[in-house]
């Protein structure tokens, strides 16, 4: 379980870093999206990976005989998802505007061949 999750996060980060180093703004947007997915999964995993643990304090948890799931990372990750979703939408709008203003989707504006 841990191996799958960590390998998945690693793959997302690697792909994301590759994509944000590309020259087209579309790839950069995709790369940042993948990186934010990786960050969200990472926070989620920070609450420990466990199955069937109750999220509320029950008698067994209070007595120390059972582990409780930590609900806080889920709250954190929810906030992070909302923020990264909003930011991605904004970035897409911004990239479209750059396309309209500079006539190309190269990250430096224009078509990336000196014309701006």
């Amino acid at each position, binding site marked *: 379980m841990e191996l799958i999750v960590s390998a998945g996060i690693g793959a997302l980060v690697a792909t994301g870093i590759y994509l*944000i180093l590309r020259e087209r*703004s579309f790839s*950069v947007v995709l790369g*940042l999206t993948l*990186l*934010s997915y*990786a*960050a*969200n999964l*990472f*926070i989620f*995993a*920070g*609450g*420990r*990976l*466990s199955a069937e*643990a109750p999220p509320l304090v029950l008698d067994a948890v209070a007595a120390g005989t059972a*582990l*409780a799931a*930590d609900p*806080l*990372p889920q709250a*954190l990750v929810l*906030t*992070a998802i909302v*923020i*990264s979703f*909003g*930011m991605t939408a*904004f*970035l897409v709008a*911004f*990239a479209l*505007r*750059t396309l309209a*203003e*500079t006539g190309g989707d190269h*990250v*430096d*504006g224009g078509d990336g061949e000196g014309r*701006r």
Partner: protein
Amino acid sequence: MIHLPLLPVLVPLVAAILQLALHRAGPGLARGLGLASVALLALASALLLRATGDGGVIPVQLGNWPAPFGITFVADRLAATMVAVTTAVAIPALLAATDGTDRMGRHFHPFFQLQLAGLNGAFLTGDLFNLFVFFEVLLIASYGLLAHGGGPARARTGLHYVALNLAGSILFLFALGLLYGTLGTLNLADVAGRLATVPEADQPLVRTALALMLGVFAFKAAILPLGFWLPHAYAAASAPVAALYAVLTKVGIYAMLRLSATALAGTPWTADLLAPWLMPAALGTVVVATLGVLAARRLGPMVAHLLLLSTGMLAVGVAVGGPAMLAALLYYLPHTTLVSAALFLLVGRIVAWRGEAADRIEHGPRPPGAGWLAAAFLALAIAVTGLPPLSGFLGKVMMLAAAPATPTGYVIWGSFILSGFVGALAMARAASVLFWEPVGPLREAPPGPAGRARADLALALSLAFVPLLVLGAAPLSAHAQATAEQIAARRPYLEAVLPDGSAPVARERRP
């Protein structure tokens, strides 16, 4: 008034919501609401300064949830000072924007207020995840403000700025996830307490998380290898926005200072996390920014590099640490923020009437009212380069006096003094071209006489801080001294947030 520390966040937030809800009522109402909001903010900052002036630390636990579980706001001398500086920059910047800049695009005023809410929230929060949230609030507002006015240059640099800051936010999230996974808390005071109990096996993970976080703050502050975005972004922004951005880099400095002084200084294995790499990076920033000032061919990038230079000097102060250096830093920080903001406003005022020449340092038409603009330029040049008799000189002397007598200290002396000399040279060269060698006819002012009067009023207001910083140097430096002692003592902050009575709750839940 126990909820006083919330006021600097709530006032601009409410103003932004009202401006958005009532945006059909016309731009006049938005302006009025914005100005009313910053006036209220001035009142709130004064109250906050008074309330924290006796050394008290005021915590606010939202919803009365006790500290490590609820959302905590903390106002101490440092936070109150930063809020006051933000307000002091915001008032002239907003006034300058009413010369017509705010009508060059949509929703300038809500973005401006949201940016203030984000800045004040970042200064007042006592929780690292909340710090992230307020960073995002101020960033998304700053994206909107940077793009305000349109044009290819703003679109291009705006895209870089947004992409870089998003990457920074994602790194911040990784750091937060790692810190929560190992410590089980994100409340700053609780983090400070828990660092002492981390088992040795977990220490590398915690160090990684804290180092990542410091790296993000260094990026926000535009320290050397991460600072090359700043001159482009700040030079492309419109003048009032750039003036407000002068506070933005200080958020990074503030966050580094707060995290290192409150949490990292407490345990030996985290105490050396910041200074060893921050010192060379900060000195490098000073050197690169100095070269940038000299190389700039346009006024905007020149002032942006001057801002970068001052950020580098502040980072040197953070890296040296110790009450004496922190006191000097806390005197220098308000000075440099206010003077940089005034410089951005002055550049905007000059550029608006130079037509084709814009902000290029070359011969062009002399702007109307050149006499008083030149006087303002002279005063700000003296202040920003640290020549006597203005506040830059006092701040620099205090910082140099607090520099250690080691080889590093000598490098600090050399770089600070040389950077001041080079800055003076560049400013003198720019001024002689701008004001003494005019060519061509006067260009009629496009924003109209009312706009010009407002821009001049805003500039005069931001200039008024320059003599105030000198005349009030004694009380200001006493306040800075008290602030530095409060930060270095650590205990007042920790005990205010987590009173002794609250027993630490077991949060060890490893499967």
